[in-house]
């Protein structure tokens, strides 16, 4: 019985992906393109050769972090839609350290820049955490308001004091080489950020499988009142999980700066924050699932740009596909729960 449940749980995301691929295939056929050819171009562009494969991995890195960000809070039944803002805050803090802290050895400079990004993300997330615990303000609304605020504040900085040259396009100075994440393979863009992302996944897994802290957070997430009665500080768990979610979000931005971009330019994030929500939900809030779905959605994103280049299909197609996947995952798990309840009731009878 339990094995069957586990199998169903594992098969569901796969079914959701399959269903989304089918629906999008119909849409592609509807605009007069061949779905098979479109998917071939998509796959070719995403993982067709060594270069596109490493590019996909580069795209996977921020998605893993924003996915972990959403998932960590979701484990506590808190909905962090604020990864985008945390990412911007992390990016600007690590860029500031990377640009303005001169004369440091790489061994010190790089960790310092990463730390700045993580702290900035965590601090930014502590605002909705505080508003939630102190004033019971819905965290979805507060994180979204703070997303817009973060992007505007960072824009003000990049257009203002941090601008490289006021007469050129708005971007900061280049981050010093001592703060850059090293490239892993010569001739590709793949940088050490992927290792940090893997490390973060392992850490996430350990926290929720083997640590008392993770157990407390999930206990609060499953049943707030029961957790309170058993002596867990609900407010503390909510705050901590939100702040850790913010740290993951901040690291997403920091690593994007120190690894991929090398400088801060407005609009560097193609909505990594909301992609992270899809990553976490598709990955069922589990570390392995998050890694796999981040890779899948990263590949889809990259493949979609190839698709847009070679056909008339706009790359927004992928956002639709992503949304359909998420809707099916939600519907699937809801139906699964209803069926389980029915089966349980029959057994009782």
């Amino acid at each position, binding site marked *: 019985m339990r094995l069957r449940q586990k199998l169903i749980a594992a098969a569901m995301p796969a079914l959701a992906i399959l269903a989304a691929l089918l629906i999008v295939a119909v849409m592609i056929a509807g605009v007069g393109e061949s779905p098979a050819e479109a998917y071939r171009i998509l796959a070719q562009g995403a993982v067709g050769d060594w270069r596109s494969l490493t590019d996909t991995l580069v795209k996977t890195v921020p998605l893993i972090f924003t996915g972990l960000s959403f998932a960590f809070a979701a484990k506590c039944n808190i909905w962090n839609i604020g990864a985008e803002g945390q990412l911007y805050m992390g990016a600007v803090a690590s860029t500031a350290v990377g640009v303005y802290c001169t004369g440091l050895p790489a061994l010190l400079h790089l960790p310092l820049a990463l730390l700045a990004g993580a702290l900035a993300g965590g601090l930014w997330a502590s605002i909705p955490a505080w508003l939630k615990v102190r004033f019971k303000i819905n965290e979805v609304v507060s994180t979204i*308001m703070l997303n817009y605020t973060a992007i505007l504040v960072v824009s003000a900085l990049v257009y203002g004091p941090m601008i490289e040259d006021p007469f050129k396009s708005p971007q900061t100075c280049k981050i010093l080489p001592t703060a850059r994440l090293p490239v892993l393979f010569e001739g590709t863009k793949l940088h050490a950020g992927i290792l940090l992302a893997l490390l973060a996944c392992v850490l996430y897994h350990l926290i929720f499988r083997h640590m008392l802290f993770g157990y407390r957070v999930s206990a609060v997430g499953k049943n707030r009142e029961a957790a309170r009665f058993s002596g867990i500080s609900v407010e503390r768990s909510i705050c901590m999980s939100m702040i850790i979610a913010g740290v993951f979000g901040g690291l997403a931005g920091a690593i994007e700066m120190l690894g991929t971009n090398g400088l801060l330019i407005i609009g560097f994030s193609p909505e990594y924050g909301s992609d992270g929500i899809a990553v976490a939900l598709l990955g069922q809030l589990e570390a392995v699932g998050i890694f796999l779905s981040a890779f899948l959605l990263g590949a889809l994103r990259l493949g979609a740009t190839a698709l847009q280049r070679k056909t008339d299909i706009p790359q927004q197609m992928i956002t639709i596909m992503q949304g359909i996947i998420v*809707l099916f995952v939600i519907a699937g798990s809801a139906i699964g729960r209803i069926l389980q309840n029915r089966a349980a009731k029959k057994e009782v009878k």
Partner: protein
Amino acid sequence: MEFITYILTSAVRSAIPLTLAGLGGVLSERAGIMNLALEGQMLMGAFFGVYFSYATGSPWLGVLGAMLVCALVGLVMAVLSIRLCANQIVVATAINLISVGITGYCLKMFITNIGNGTVITVPSFRAVSIPVLSSLPFLGEVLFSYKPLTYVTILLAVLIHIYLYKTKLGLVHRSIGENPLVADTLGINVNLVRYGAVVACGVLCGISGAFMSLSNLNQFQNGMVSGRGFIAFAAVIFGGWSPFGVLGASVFFGLADAIQMRMQAMQTGISYHLLQCVPYLCTLVALVFARKSAACPASDGLPYRKEET
């Protein structure tokens, strides 16, 4: 005087879409469905308003099309959150995500590609001047010189107020948001009312979005709702889950927006990026002060599972 007139009229223009979506939020939440998908539905309304107005040549048919599409989106929200009892926040988030994709895709396929890069002009609303009244000094401009949907919105607020507080169905509607079990014991079809409320919310969001694209901007831009759906959600809370409360809260947020826009134009030396933060920060501050949650429907956000016997 001219300054005050400007601020007031542009505050009303900003407040109307918030009010419309907020009224939808009131209907949905009074029935116990926490609707965070206002944003996505407004975005859909904004696009399909433009699309149907372009296709039919009439802005009124544009609004009608937007209402129909958003009713459909509301139905998806309703099935997932009522029939399947899925988490309402997650469902709404998914709807918001998918709306960004659908509108971005359709904009490229059906508007941008057709115009070959040139901007397509879409039939949109013109201001109606109410004879005599609109020529009054000051009052004429502040009260009687808007586009038709503005007056429709005020009317809708009054109608929804009457529905909720003066009709029997309205009483039933509110009781479901407070305690669906009691309503069910009295023989009321809880989920049917909830379906109606969520679909009606979708329709109102459709009008709201169409107002933004057909009355304020006369075109669709990607992501043009930019958080107003969530500000409307906040207006529902700030306005104490009542239609007139929402109207007042929306005017407050509209004022903040109008002052911020005016200050951008005045070149005060403050970064215009920072000025644009004002509406979002005002929303947070308003929520802090709107803590008196006694008005909050007691079962808001909780699915109702009827025992299968």
